[in-house]
C-alpha cells in the first residue's frame, strides 16, 4: 500500500461524517418524496371543494349522509373486534404451549402461519366459496374466520417475540411450584407478562380486518372497504376523504400499538 493511499484512507476517516450526512439527507428526501408527499398531497386534496376552489370539510360530511356509511362501518368494526378476540383466544394458548414445551411441531405451526402470506388471498376466497358449508356462507360472520387466517403471520411473530423475551419456563415453574393451577398460571402470570405482545397481536388483527377487501368483495359482503369502492363511483372526493381518514387513523392506531408493546417489553425486561 503506497503513501498516497495511506493519506486517502486517513482522509476517508475524516470525511465519514460528511458521507454520513449526505446519505441521511438523501434518504430523507427520497423518503419524503416516496412516502410523505403522497400522504400530504392526498390529505390536502381531500379538503378541496368540488371544483377545486377553496377548502372545506364537505367531502368528509358528504360521507356521513350516505345511507351505507354507518351500517358498513358498524359491520367492519363488529367483524374486526370478533376477529381480534378469536385470534387471541386461538393463538395465545397455542403459542404458550409451543414455547413452553419446545414442541417439535413448532416449525410446522411456523410454516402454516406463513402460508397466508404466500397463498394468494384471491385463491383462498375462491376456495372459501366452494369449501364453506352453506350455514356459514349465509352469514357475514364467516368473514371473521378468514380475517383470523389473514392475521396469522403477524400474530405468530408478535406473540413469539413476546414469549421469547420472557423466561417462560421459570415463570411457569415458579407459579406451578407455588401451587397455582395451569389456568391460573396462564391468566395471572403469562398473560400479564406478554401483555404488550397480546395487545400488538390484537390491534394488528383488528387493523387488517378493518381494511380487508379481497375476501370480502369476492364473497360478496358489504363492509367499509367494499362500500368505499362502490361509493367512489358516485363521489371520488368522498372516497379520497374516506381513505385519508382511514390511513391517518391506521397510523394513529399502530403508533399506539408500538407504544404499548414497547412499554410491555420494557416492564417485563426490567422486573423479571
Amino acid at each position, binding site marked *: 500500500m503506497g503513501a498516497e493511499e495511506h493519506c486517502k484512507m486517513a482522509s476517508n476517516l475524516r470525511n465519514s461524517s460528511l458521507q454520513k450526512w449526505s*446519505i*441521511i439527507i438523501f*434518504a430523507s428526501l*427520497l423518503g419524503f418524496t*416516496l*412516502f410523505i*408527499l*403522497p*400522504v*400530504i*398531497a*392526498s390529505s390536502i*386534496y381531500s379538503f378541496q371543494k368540488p371544483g*377545486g376552489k377553496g377548502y372545506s370539510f364537505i367531502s368528509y360530511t358528504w360521507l356521513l349522509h350516505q345511507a351505507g356509511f354507518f351500517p358498513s362501518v358498524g359491520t367492519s368494526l363488529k367483524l374486526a373486534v370478533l376477529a381480534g378476540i378469536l385470534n387471541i383466544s*386461538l*393463538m395465545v*394458548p397455542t403459542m404458550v*404451549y*409451543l414455547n413452553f414445551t*419446545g*414442541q*417439535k411441531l413448532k416449525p410446522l*405451526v411456523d410454516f*402454516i402461519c406463513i*402460508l397466508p*402470506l*404466500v*397463498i*394468494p*388471498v*384471491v*385463491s383462498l376466497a*375462491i*376456495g372459501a366459496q*366452494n*369449501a364453506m358449508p352453506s350455514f356459514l356462507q349465509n352469514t357475514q360472520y364467516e368473514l371473521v*374466520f*378468514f380475517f*383470523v*387466517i389473514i392475521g*396469522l403471520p403477524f400474530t405468530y411473530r408478535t406473540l413469539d417475540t413476546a414469549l421469547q423475551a420472557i423466561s417462560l419456563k421459570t415463570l411457569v415453574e415458579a407459579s406451578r411450584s407455588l401451587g397455582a393451577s395451569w389456568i391460573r398460571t396462564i391468566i395471572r402470570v403469562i398473560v400479564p407478562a406478554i401483555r404488550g405482545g397480546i395487545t400488538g397481536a390484537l390491534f394488528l388483527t383488528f387493523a387488517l380486518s378493518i*381494511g380487508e*377487501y*379481497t375476501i370480502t*368483495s*369476492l364473497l360478496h359482503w358489504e363492509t367499509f*372497504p367494499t362500500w*368505499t*369502492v362502490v361509493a*367512489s363511483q358516485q363521489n*371520488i372526493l368522498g*372516497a379520497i376523504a374516506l*381513505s*385519508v381518514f382511514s*390511513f391517518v387513523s*391506521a*397510523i394513529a392506531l399502530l*403508533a399506539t400499538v*408500538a407504544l404499548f408493546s*414497547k412499554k410491555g417489553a420494557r416492564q417485563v425486561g426490567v422486573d423479571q
Partner: protein
Amino acid sequence: MGAVEAQSRVRSSSRSSGVLPLLPFFAFTGFFLLWPVVAVTLKSLKGKNNEWTLDNFRPIIHSGPYFHSFIVSIKLAIITASIGSVVGAFFAFVIVTYVGGRLKNVLDSISAVFANSGGVPLAFMFIAAFGSNGLATKFIRFLGYDIYAGHFTIFSFTGVVLVYTFFQAPLMILVFQPAISGMRKEWREASTNLGASALTYWRRVGIPILLPPFIGAFFLLFAGGFSAYATARALTSGTVSIVPIVIGALVDGNTQASQANLGASLAVGMIVVALVIMIGYVWAQKSTAKWRQT
C-alpha cells in the same frame, strides 16, 4: 443459545403431552386455510358435468388473455419486488446505521403502517396525489417535470407499480432490518485490521451474508405483489388485467358453472406460482441459517 435450546428440548420432550393442546389450531387452520385450498384445487379439476378433467387449465396455457394475465401479474410482481427490495434495503441500512432510540421506533411503526397499507384507501390516496390533477403531480410539475407528458396515468400498469412500491418498500424495511442489524461491527473492523479494503469486505463477507436474506425478502415481496388485489381493483376498476382481477371478474355476480371452474383453475395457477416462490423463500432461509451465529 443453541445449547440452551437443545437442552430444554431434551428436557421437555419427556414431559410434553403431545399434540392435544394444538388441536384447536390445527383444526382451525385445517378447515379455514387448507380445506379451501384443497376445495379450489378439486373444483378446478371438475368439468361441466362434474367429471374429472384438466380442461379448465387449457385456457391458461392456450388462450391469450388468461396466459397474458399471468405474464402481467408476474411482471408486476418482479418489477415492484425489485424496486421495493432495493429501495427498502437502502432505507433499512440507513435506519440501522444512523438512526437510534425513539426515532427508530417511530420509523418502524410508520413502516409497519405503510407495509400494511396495500388496500382500497391507498388507491384513492394515490389518485388524489398522482392523478392528472393530483397535488403531487402539480408539485412535481411545479418543479419542472410533467409526469403526464408521456403515457403515464395513475390508472395504468405504471401507476399500479408506483402504488405497489409504496407498500413494498416499507415491507422490505421491516423484513430486511434484522439481517442488517445482525451484521456485527467486529466483522468490518476485523476485515480492515487484516488489511482488506472496504470493497473486499463487501465482496467476501458483507454481500455473501446479506444476499440470502435479501433474496428471501424479495420472494416475500414477490408473493405480495403477485397476489395483491384490492389496490389494483380500486385503482383501475379492473382495467389492468392481472390474474386476481381476471378471477374477480370471472366469479363476480351471476356466473356460469364453466366460468366458475375456470376461475378456480386460475386460482390454482396462482397457488402454483406462489408455491414455487415459497420454495425459493424456504431455500433462502435455509442458506441464511447455515451461517447463523450460535
